[in-house]
């Protein structure tokens, strides 16, 4: 069921009643600057969707992600996850950064266990869940390894397992494969799709790669602006990706794929 609203100074917004992640006219001003970073950000992501956010470097994509994660508070407007304000979400979100951010003093198992440990869960079912996630990301056999003994791709898999182990409703990815080589990056994208399809999780991913966005997402949001020079960033385009699932890497050469990629590139350059 869709209801249309007209909001002053805002683009025409469709609010879906089953929307899971919503942002309404969010502004963010970095107080120390002061720097007006984000303006009039409105979003509506249905449960289970895969949304990618693209845009030039320094435009404020990571800031928006941190607002959704509840790490920052909007200066105005609101962000809610399953009808709770983002910073009070009863079930913590899963978060993956460009760097794996594993704790070097913990083994793979201990790193993956962290979110459950913080919730005070250490029963057999929690332990089974940790093992299940390690198996799901394909790291069975590496349970007792320390992060220093893993390749970049493996470390990022551990980070993904850690982000999902507590069954978060929302997975936030900030350039998750940005530090990996091209081949590993492609493989990780496919892995991510497989994991996303195996779990009931909504994904919001910041990426620099247009082809990655097209290949993975249901919808690509394009952010534009130049906060450093007095033009706060906003979401300028929403581009639905009409490609069938399951998506394969070979689809990249299809005309349909190229058309989507060209549309996004044009939107970024506007």
């Amino acid at each position, binding site marked *: 069921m869709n209801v249309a609203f007209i909001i002053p100074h805002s683009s025409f917004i469709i609010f879906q009643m089953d929307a899971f992640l919503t942002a309404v006219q969010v502004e963010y001003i970095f107080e120390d600057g002061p720097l007006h970073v984000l303006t009039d950000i409105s979003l509506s992501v249905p449960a289970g969707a895969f949304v990618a956010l693209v845009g030039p470097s320094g435009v404020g994509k990571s800031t928006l992600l941190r607002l959704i*994660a509840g790490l920052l508070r909007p200066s105005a407007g609101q962000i809610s996850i399953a009808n709770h304000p983002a910073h009070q979400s009863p079930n913590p979100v899963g978060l993956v950064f460009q760097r794996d951010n594993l704790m070097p003093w913990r083994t793979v198992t201990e790193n993956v266990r*962290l979110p459950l440990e913080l919730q005070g869960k250490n029963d057999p079912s929690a332990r089974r869940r940790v093992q299940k996630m390690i198996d799901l990301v394909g790291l069975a056999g590496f349970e007792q390894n320390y992060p220093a003994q893993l390749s970049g791709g493996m470390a990022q898999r551990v980070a993904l397992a850690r982000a999902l182990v507590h069954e978060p409703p929302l997975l936030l990815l900030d350039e998750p494969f940005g530090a990996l080589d091209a081949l590993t990056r492609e493989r990780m994208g496919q892995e991510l799709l497989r994991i996303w399809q195996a779990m009931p999780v909504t994904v919001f991913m910041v990426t620099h790669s247009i082809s990655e966005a097209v290949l993975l997402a249901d919808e690509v949001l394009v952010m534009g602006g130049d906060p450093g020079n007095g033009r706060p960033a906003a979401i300028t385009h929403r581009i639905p990706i009409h490609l069938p699932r399951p998506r394969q890497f070979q689809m990249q050469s299809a005309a349909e794929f190229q058309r989507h990629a060209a549309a996004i590139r044009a939107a970024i350059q506007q």
Partner: protein
Amino acid sequence: MVLVSFVGLLAGWHLLVTWGAYDRFILPGPVDVWRQLLIVGGDGRLLKHSLITISELLPGLGIGLLIAMPLGYLLAKSSLAERLLSPYLIASQAIPVIAIAPLLTIWVRSTYWARVLVAVLVVFFPILINIIAGLRAVPAELYELMHSLQATRRQIFTKLEIPAALPILLAGLKVGATLSVIGALVGEFVQPKSQGLGYLLVTARYQFKTDLVFVVLITLSAIALVMYGLVALLEKRLLRWQASK
């Protein structure tokens, strides 16, 4: 390798004394020092004075650590505390401990605690600096991760800050452990009341027993080595993950 270099050192020392221009009582040879070591080691004097010095430096190190830890945490976490306190802390380091040690022995009645206090002052600063550096080195993204998982203050402290700061803290403790020997010795220099290796050193010098001075110096080095070794052992146990690299 270490053994070869040590034998070489002894041989060079021996030759220097045998063919050198110095008299025995000014520069004793390794044989004289060994003989003296057997004497003071045999009659129990060396052990007695060593134990007294160790009984000063261990509490000195412990108390220094206990003060440096909370203060380091405060300074690393609060920029206000850092602005208020760090000028004094840094300025205090410009004052040689040997210069204020006599004052301390006046203020603190107990000979023992005056010496411990000098040791505390010597070990405190390097440990403090390393605690601050260790806490500052915790990546901001790991804090974000903990916050996104709704970790409590206490969980952030025990599961992130302590383990993340531990390697640098232990490096500081290594420096502090060796410095604690100097601290206790300085305390004994200014308060040489008939006990401790510092007392033994001062009296040996007055009596021109340079071989005994050497024995004391070697004992001090040995204590410092053992202290360093103990922290290194602790490091190996606590930082097992670093060996995996």
